[in-house]
């Protein structure tokens, strides 16, 4: 499903942020990405959600060579990827409901087909009271949950979550994790970048990838630190 071979990334003329990163993730696997702040977790995820081209190396996604993919095919690939951005990236002029509906709307799904679905999802992440609220009046944790709901609403084949529980309390974090695990059980490949060791500890079936000084080391599934 995901193959990286000797991938290197450098912003402008700076040092290499990622060096010789290689790994392979099969369909339906779940992985945590961890490492100190500034190690390059977000950078690695940006490679995977096609916002950044690697300086060198090969990336294959859904069996396609990402560096060779044409612009016209990007939307199709994107619709199979859900992303929780570290800085949420909600649209300020849309309500929580509308933000979450966005991936379905741009894919051409009709409102009556997704309405109940979304309301249920929002209820689950604890935003049932904030369906019609705009992001600016949400608390930090509420925004994060809206971002999570948007990422998973279309049941993507690949879910990339960047620090998805940094702004919520531990109980809620575990509840959200359960959402990811559930999705993973239904076949979605999941990568979660996080600093939260308790999250990793709570998911024994997941692989743990650790970035350090631009290099990736991988702990096989079940051997969480």
């Amino acid at each position, binding site marked *: 499903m995901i193959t990286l071979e000797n991938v290197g990334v450098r912003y402008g003329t700076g040092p290499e942020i990622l060096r010789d990163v290689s790994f392979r993730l099969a369909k339906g696997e779940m992985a945590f990405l961890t490492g100190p702040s500034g190690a390059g977790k977000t950078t690695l995820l940006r490679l995977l*959600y096609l916002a950044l081209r690697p300086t060198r190396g090969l990336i294959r996604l859904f069996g396609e060579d990402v560096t060779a993919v044409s612009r016209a095919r990007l939307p199709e690939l994107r619709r199979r990827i859900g992303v929780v951005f570290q800085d949420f990236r909600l*649209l300020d*002029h849309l*309500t929580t409901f509308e933000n979450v509906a966005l991936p379905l*709307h741009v894919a051409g799904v009709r*409102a009556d087909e997704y309405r109940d679905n979304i309301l249920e999802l929002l209820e689950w992440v604890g935003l049932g009271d904030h369906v019609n609220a705009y992001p*600016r009046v949400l608390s930090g944790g509420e925004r994060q949950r809206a971002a999570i709901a948007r990422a998973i609403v279309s049941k993507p084949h690949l879910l990339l979550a960047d620090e998805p529980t940094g702004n919520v309390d531990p109980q809620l974090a575990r509840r959200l994790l359960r959402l990811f695990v559930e999705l993973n059980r239904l076949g979605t490949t999941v990568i979660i970048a996080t600093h939260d060791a308790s999250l990793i500890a709570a998911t024994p079936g997941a692989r743990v990838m650790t970035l350090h000084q631009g290099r990736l080391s991988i702990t096989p599934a079940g051997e969480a630190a």
Partner: protein
Amino acid sequence: MTAQTKKPGGWGAPVPKGLSGRNILPRTHAPLRTFMVAMAVMTYLAAVAIGGMFMTWRAIQIWKSGVVAEATVQILPLSEPEQNSGKAQKLPATDMNTRVQQAVRFLEKRPEVKSLRVLTDRENRALLQPWLGDVSIMQDVPLPRLIAIRLNPERKIDIAALDRALRAAVPGARLDAHGRWVRALSHMASTVFWLGLGILAAIIIAAVVLVVHAARAALESNRETIEVLHLVGARDSFIARQVQRLFLRAGFLAGMLGVAAAWLTFALLALLAPAEGIREGAWQLLFGAPEKIAYHYGAWLIIVLTATTISLLSARTAAMRILAEMFAEP
């Protein structure tokens, strides 16, 4: 601090309607508003300038048909060259009358001449009075006969050619079309007209520069939105459609607003301008004969359409440029 706006819903809120039929780009946005104001202002100026041009144009037309169309034909008393010494010799009145008849017949056939009238002897003398004083003192002096003609204002008239033809046809006849004055006025009118056209051109160029820039800036401030749309899987065509819808609406509304404001300006001029000519011109501009104001309203319609097109195209181009930057070659 950060907007402490009322939470629109939340507790016991109505069921959300979804995004269908709704524009995903924000409609109320300072840069978009600036774009709309800029567009409205520039269409206003263009509409005012074009209206002003039409007014000047019509004023010149009216003035031309009023003043330029007047001309005088003189039939001069003929003197026998061989008899130029000694006392003046009276020419037979029939001769003069014949020539006047000749001239009338000649003029009546010319398409340039709309109407003509042979002045009576009394009118003749009244006309000459400023030059000759009380003409009763020279009752016996042979005077030239005058024919007042009105030229056809709709036609472009070659005064010099008409004069030549007249002189050839009728001996001693000549055409006086107040040439010097007409030339001075025509010159001034055309100078003013070209100056106006220049200012109009300046306005239009400036408008395009400003409006294209403002559209880009407005879209630039939507970059984040466009990126997010792209990231959640929207096709370029979908995003372009959203942008076009937004700017079609914005450009059209702003254009209409600008033209409406210009219309109001002329309506005010028609009612309140201090100079009668301007009042009348503005009135004609807005409420004149249908076949004439068709041009004015047509020009304004073209302004609105141009405004809409410019905003649409510049926004679309800007959107496409932003989209092209995404996941581009490094």
